[in-house]
């Protein structure tokens, strides 16, 4: 059975704008993105919203629904009361282009700052041989759909814009962890994770993990292990001594 839902949607260009009220029809089985599309089709033809796959796999329709970072296409209308007013805003951490569409170029900038996979020079493509248990850990991180909701929710940059130059955000710290754990990656990324990409800013409050639509354990499996690797390198005198005596690294 359909019903009329009350929506409050952020409308505006740049940062200027306001929440506008709409009443929109909702049908059984629909998600928030469906309702936004109906709004676009019936009442606000110039409403800007970024979307693509409608299957939770492209990461385009990241938005904040009742204040929580969510994918519009994966948020069922049945999770709300019919009488509830649903507030839809763009991601708070990134500049707004128009309405619900953000400029997420910060993330691409951060991606470019991370040195790419660096295999040994004497191993040619096609010669990589890895055991399944060696690749399993980083395979979890490859599920990332780059919706950037983890970077959006992280208070380090959400509440402190001034930290953006120094902090890569959970998504890219996870990328660094993925590469650092890779059996064939030769680059030592521990020092740079802390000094150049701002791992120390993370205070492990796990919001990135809470919002991840792919349920990647970003904090427990990437950020904390990476923090421990940094401790090995920078803060643990015993490990430092051991590495000098036994000359071992990257085992």
């Amino acid at each position, binding site marked *: 059975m359909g019903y009329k839902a009350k929506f409050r949607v952020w409308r505006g260009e740049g940062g200027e704008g306001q929440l506008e009220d709409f009443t929109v029809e909702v049908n059984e089985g629909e998600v928030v993105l469906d309702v936004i599309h109906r709004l676009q089709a019936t009442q606000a033809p110039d409403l800007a919203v970024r979307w693509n796959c409608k299957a939770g796999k492209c990461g385009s329709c990241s938005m904040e629904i009742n204040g929580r970072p969510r994918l519009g296409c994966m948020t069922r209308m049945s999770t709300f009361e019919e009488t509830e007013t649903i507030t839809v805003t763009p991601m708070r951490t990134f500049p707004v282009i128009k309405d619900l569409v953000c400029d997420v*170029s910060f993330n691409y900038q951060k991606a470019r700052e991370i040195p790419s996979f660096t295999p040994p020079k004497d191993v040619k493509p096609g010669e990589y041989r890895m*055991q399944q248990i060696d690749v399993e850990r980083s395979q979890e991180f490859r599920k990332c759909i780059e919706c950037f909701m983890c970077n959006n929710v992280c208070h380090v940059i*959400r509440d402190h814009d001034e930290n953006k130059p120094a902090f890569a955000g959970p998504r890219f710290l996870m990328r660094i962890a993925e590469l650092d754990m890779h059996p064939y990656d030769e680059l030592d990324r521990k020092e740079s994770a802390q000094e150049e990409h701002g791992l120390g800013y993370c205070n492990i409050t796990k919001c990135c993990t809470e919002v991840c639509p792919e349920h990647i354990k970003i904090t427990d499996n990437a950020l904390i292990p990476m923090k*421990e690797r940094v401790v*090995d390198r920078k803060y643990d005198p015993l490990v430092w001594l051991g590495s000098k005596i036994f000359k071992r690294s990257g085992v």
Partner: protein
Amino acid sequence: MTQTTAESPTSKQRAQLKVRTLRTDRWWLVPALTFAGLMSFLIYGVWAIFDKSYFAEPYIAPFSSPCLATSCPEGARFLGLAPFGDWYGLPPGLLILGLPGGFRLTCYYYRKSYYRSFWLSPPACAVSEPHTKYSGETRLPLIIQNVHRYFFYLAVVIGAILAYDAVLAFRDEHGNWGHVGLGTIILVANAVLIACYTLGCHSCRHITAGRLNHFSRHPIRYKAWTFVSKLNARHQQFAWASMYSVMIADLYVRLVAKGVINFPFA
């Protein structure tokens, strides 16, 4: 005409939402409960440290174990040792308080919980924090959190001593083996939960094999890592369960020592 591309000067601004959060759920409930839970532990801990009824043969209260001062009753001394002589006049619990305390204070789970509930940084996801500046764990004093693994080593020792105390609790008040009282069960349950919390620590996970890139070359360490990872997935639950179990076990022994609960049921 207004430009709406990413390069537009007007586009370099976030949505100017004036409210702290638009969340409509009870986001404050979890930090409030966490605050209450941690505060109750702190208040109990301060009382327990200065309470003198910490030993009732064969039970010793976990907050005062190992008892290392000459002021400890003879049966309470760890392996009969009393390295801290007559000069030490403070409660014996103060001598070892820093070890499990430091372990929990620097624990990755507890960091999350008190950063959220005490420091409000942030109080909940997508709720603005009240601080104007933030440097996280990049500088003093919070950079000291990186010492966690050393507290882990010490916590293993304390955990082993609590397990030893639990084994001794299978004796009765005359020292005869075979006794199983409510206190025995409580101390054993506490020792198990402390072990699960300690061994599920993120530093332990790193030390077993997390620091390796080739699990396949270290099958035994990989097995250990797999086991620790299973405990680690429940680290939050074990953190709370062991915190309350140690509090309950401690209170129970003190009640026995004060004569509120008596043998043989104790």
